[in-house]
């Protein structure tokens, strides 16, 4: 089976790699590129633990083929913080105790960021609707929803600045 050459931008950096045509983006990120922040919970698009943003769209990286990201722009959980400065969502998740085991946290943060960037005024109902594609089994969602609500004002202020 011949490998495909992929050139892409991940978290602002140009990345090149070879991949089998059947390899998922999640597998390429984790097994080849050392980006293990995206998690595998189901490998069929049900849980959202592997959420990444591909050309501005929130996707489950387990349901995208690695060859599909040739020429694309990708943001993973590893690209959410600005160096040592945590993103407001990352800070609010810590402050609000919005994680317990933490395995679903990267997916929730990537998904919530995608929501607030397009809908900065999302209310509780909208947040719950948007995050229905992300499963958490520890928190009962209460503190996750609160953390997203708490991060929104700071994100709105940053967007205006």
């Amino acid at each position, binding site marked *: 089976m011949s490998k495909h050459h992929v050139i892409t931008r991940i978290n602002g950096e140009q990345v090149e790699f070879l991949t089998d045509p059947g390899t998922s983006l999640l597998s390429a990120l984790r097994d080849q590129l050392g*980006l293990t*922040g995206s998690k595998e919970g*189901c490998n069929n698009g049900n849980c959202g633990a592997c959420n990444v943003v591909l050309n501005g769209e929130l996707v489950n990286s387990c349901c995208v083929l690695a060859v599909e990201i040739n020429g694309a722009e990708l943001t993973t959980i590893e690209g959410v913080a600005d160096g040592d400065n945590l993103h407001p969502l990352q800070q609010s998740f810590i402050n609000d*105790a919005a994680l*317990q085991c933490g395995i679903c946290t990267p997916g929730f943060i990537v998904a919530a960021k995608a929501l607030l960037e397009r809908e900065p005024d999302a209310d509780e109902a909208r947040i719950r609707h948007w995050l229905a594609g992300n499963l958490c089994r520890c*928190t009962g*969602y209460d503190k996750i929803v609160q953390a997203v609500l708490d991060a929104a004002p700071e994100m709105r202020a940053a967007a205006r600045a």
Partner: protein
Amino acid sequence: MTTIERPAYKVIGSRPVRPDGVEKVTGKAQYAADPRPQGVVFGKILRSPHAHARIVSIDTSEAERHPGVLGIVTAADFPQAEDKVQDLGEGAVNLRELSDNILASEKVLYRGHAIAAVAAASPHEAEAAAQKIRVEYEVLTPVTNVLDAMREDAPLLNETRHTKMMGGQHSERPSNIAAYNQFKAGDADAGLAESDLVVEREFTTSMVHQGYIEPQSSTASWNADGTITIWTSTQGAFVVRAQVAEVLRIPVARIKVIPMEIGGGFGGKIPIYLDPVAALLSKKSGRPVKLSMNRTEVFEGTGPTSGTVISVKAGAKDGKLHAVQATLRYEAGAYPGSPVGAGAMTMLAPYDLEHVEIHTFDVVVNKPKTSAYRAPGSPAAAFAMESVVDELARTLKIDPLQFRLNSASKEGTKQVTGVPFARIGNEEVLNTAMTHPHYTAPIEGPYRGRGVASGYWFNGGMQSSVVVAVNPDGTVNLVEGSTDIGGTRASLAMQLAETLSIPYDAIRPIVADTDSIGHNDVTGGSRTTVASGMAVYQAGQDVIREMSSRAARLWSVTPEDVSYEDGVFHCLKDSTKELTFKELAAQGARTGGPIAGRASLVARGAGGAFGTHIVDVEVDPGTGKTTILRYTAVQDVGTAIHPSYVEGQIQGGVVQGIGWALNEEFVYDENGRMLNSSFLDYRMPTALDVPLIDAVIVEVPNPGHPYGVRGVGEVPIVPPLAAIANAVADATGHRFTQLPLSPRRLIEELDGGD
């Protein structure tokens, strides 16, 4: 928050950020599937397509020739395990059954039962090679339902198994009923006969899964010197080490288990499945081997909790619960060991009553071997009991919380085991619920209703071991061995900060591997903040004793002449002499060497705890959908070390209970094949399915703990099943006795009732 008689604390009760927070929100935290030791290769397990079959032969020759294959393992590669029962952590384990559940030898007992494993250079090659292993089966009739399995003519999972009766005798005939037990007090028949009202019903719950988001994963390296290193997802690294040592017949000290960050467990990550297989594959291939489950393997091949059929006959007299007769039948799965005993011992815990008779049956069926799931055994039993209590109260036109208060257990009340309760917070919880604005608010509108229910869990103690090292700059390393699933590094560091009177930020807690700290039992039974907290307290006292003697040496007085208060050591002989914790920490080398404290203990005095939940629902009679409108969970936690994580435990437990009540179930076809082994079809609650959960903390300190802590994590999953069923009964006028209350069931029963 309702607090009873608590001392003033400085750190306990505050809400600092958790030590592992940044690593987890940035994706840097390392979970079991993340590490890539140099040269790592990948394993794949071959699993049974049949629920019940004899293995006639296994031919691996074709698979061995598959390109990229580096090793194949079957049960024949395990040393012959002894047919003996041993306590290897939370509860007893039969070693042969443990070994057979990891790789089947003679029979497969459930679909998904592991048979063989392949290591290859890539996951795809391993998977392709596993499909080339030829297994010849003699397919047998499966039995997947507890009542069917109990019939005398049922197909037997094990022809040599006889029912273990009370007192140790065994039944004459072989049976799928692995064990029978009974609990008796007073005279239940007479108690029921003299009751003002008797309600009798039978309840059914389905097998459900813990649903942790991280599938099991284990990476093992069989090293050149004969030692084994295992990176794994577990609730108890020492239990993994003990079980791998038993299965592989290797001395414990040669195995090092590195507990990775764990992506949820809820009891399901206490048993081992992959670890010894990965180790043997590594031995054969000469490479580190990574074995990870996919979601279907997690559903079909790991331990969920029991489906149950529970009959209850209960009588009320003078407005109180008076007599109960109950029969509990629990599915154990493929091997004995359901939590039916815990069901019997918890279901009547909220009540003080005279006449009790409970019969319990532990029954094997052709489904995965069950494992612990949050308050194992208690939720199903509470569903039955609390539904009947609700019906008694409503029929008698007594407020259901008032009825519970009339009958409430308290300090000194005898449990069904005959052991009296120590100080418990049952009445405080009920009183807090009764006066909560949720309960006093009206509930109005068609097809809307309110339900309440109570629940109990024992909470565990068991063994813990910690080391506290004081650094010359006054910071402290807390080395512990309890896996941190939900924030225990924070809760233990906070207790140490309180004990040492130093800032929380000065303490760095780490969860060590099995080479680096003494034995610690599993993170389970809501024990870690309690028991490892006791160890932390004792180790902190040890540090203060040691530092007092160092100060005494500096001041040329005896240690008894040194006192420690608010972070400062004082000389009682000379009030001008004092040293802060930090100043004295810097004097280690001058006063006798590095300063450390330690504690190893078996924790006694873990405090049982109660919760009472209030839920409002709306049922759509057209679609059968039940919507949770409002939910309030009141719980006695003893002392809330970190209130945010206490609330989080309660909220998380409630939502698991909502899933159990409304949607979750293992669906099987007649051949014992699970039909919904994906997250899409095994429908766990999403953020959209639940409202904000109001967690109300009651603090009745546990007298058995230095800071009054009771376990928190398990109680909250106990009441929701009955609370929701009681609310649906209030909304529809129809008493549902089978879970889940899925839309289909609601429509069928409501239409049938018309």
